[in-house]
């Protein structure tokens, strides 16, 4: 079986791998790199569980052909912590009870990070828009929205 060589930055570290033709980035991350933080929810672009950042932009890894990230920078939830220290979004999600089953959480956090990286003090409406591609079936969106807002205001207070 022919494989395609691929090299990119994964959470700040260079990785090189071979993938089968047509394999999506979600499979490459999970099966070739072993980063299990992005989740498979639908494979259709409907749920956002597989959300990652590509060159800082929010993308769905299940709809991204793996080889298109060659030479680019991919960020996943696995890279959100700073060493042992949780990211403000992670702390806020814990404090605001913004996860229940936890399956949508990696995608939610990446969508929220994509927002705060560009807009450190978003309005509630902007938070709702930013996570509108991410489906949560158990927690409910209110705690998640509150957590993103809390992380944003916390970040501003420290800055």
């Amino acid at each position, binding site marked *: 079986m022919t494989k395609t060589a691929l090299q990119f930055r994964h959470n700040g570290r260079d990785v090189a791998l071979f993938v089968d*033709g047509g394999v999506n980035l979600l499979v490459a991350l999970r099966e070739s790199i072993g980063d299990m933080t992005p989740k498979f929810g639908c*494979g259709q*672009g409907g749920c956002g569980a597989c959300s990652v950042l590509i060159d800082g932009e*929010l993308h*769905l890894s299940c709809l991204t*052909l793996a080889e298109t990230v060659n030479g680019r920078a991919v960020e996943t939830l696995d890279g959100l912590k700073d060493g042992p220290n949780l990211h403000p979004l992670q702390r806020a999600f814990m404090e605001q009870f913004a996860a229940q089953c936890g399956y949508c959480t990696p995608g939610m956090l990446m969508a929220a990070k994509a927002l705060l990286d560009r807009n450190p003090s978003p309005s509630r409406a902007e938070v709702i828009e930013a996570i509108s591609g991410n489906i949560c079936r158990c927690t409910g969106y209110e705690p998640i929205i509150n957590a993103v807002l809390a992380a944003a205001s916390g970040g501003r207070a420290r800055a």
Partner: protein
Amino acid sequence: MPVTVKTFANFGEAASALSSDRSARYLGGGTLVMRALNEGDVSISTVVRATDRALTRIDVASSRVTIGAGVTFARILAERELAFLHAPARSIGGPAVRNMGTVGGNLFAPSPYGDFTVALLALDATVSVQGGLGARDMPIEEFLQSRERQSGALVLAIACQRPASADAFRYRKIARIKPKGGSVITLAAHLPSSGGRISGARIALGSMAATQIRARAAERALEGRSLDDAAINAAAAVAAEGVSPTDNALGSAWYRREIVGVHLRRLLSGLE
């Protein structure tokens, strides 16, 4: 047999690769082709890509704007000169889908998707297509009617006239989930007027037939009239003429027929 990915630097080469292989599909933003592969569509065995910058160009210099087929909805939203297309661009997906999905791909998106194309149909856009025999421009309506046969062709760009005023182009997507959700009905209207009378109205509907279609009876009802209650009511009354919606999880065909006139009235009245 695994999928073969062919990447070309030049769109012409990509177009030839596409037209010479019936199992090939062109990969734009991935929201259609990768989805099909994920669901196990084995009819696709070749994926063709082009990295040609010509496909991602936006030209807003004149009154006629040209948008490369590979331009994403996020880029349209970032372009102030394309403000008239912001409402349809924003109505698609969540941020991730808008960062990925492209104008060209939207032309092929089946119901209940393809909202941006509804706007382009109302704007009487032209679609530039590169086939096996070379490039040609075709009216979007003709393109949509022959869409089944276009999968071997590569869309290069779309072009349309900028509406004369913000009020002359209107767009409305009816979804059950806000801010993101599949279309129950999508409506767009281009209402050029001269001397207070509408001339050359175009009304387009999404999710009301196998492809995006024009509401010709409603267009005729507005022709030569001022946009008053009587004209709006006349257009709304015939909004369902010629439609052939189907049942899906978002709404029944019956429901769509029932509400299309209501939403057209709201669109034309400028009601939210």
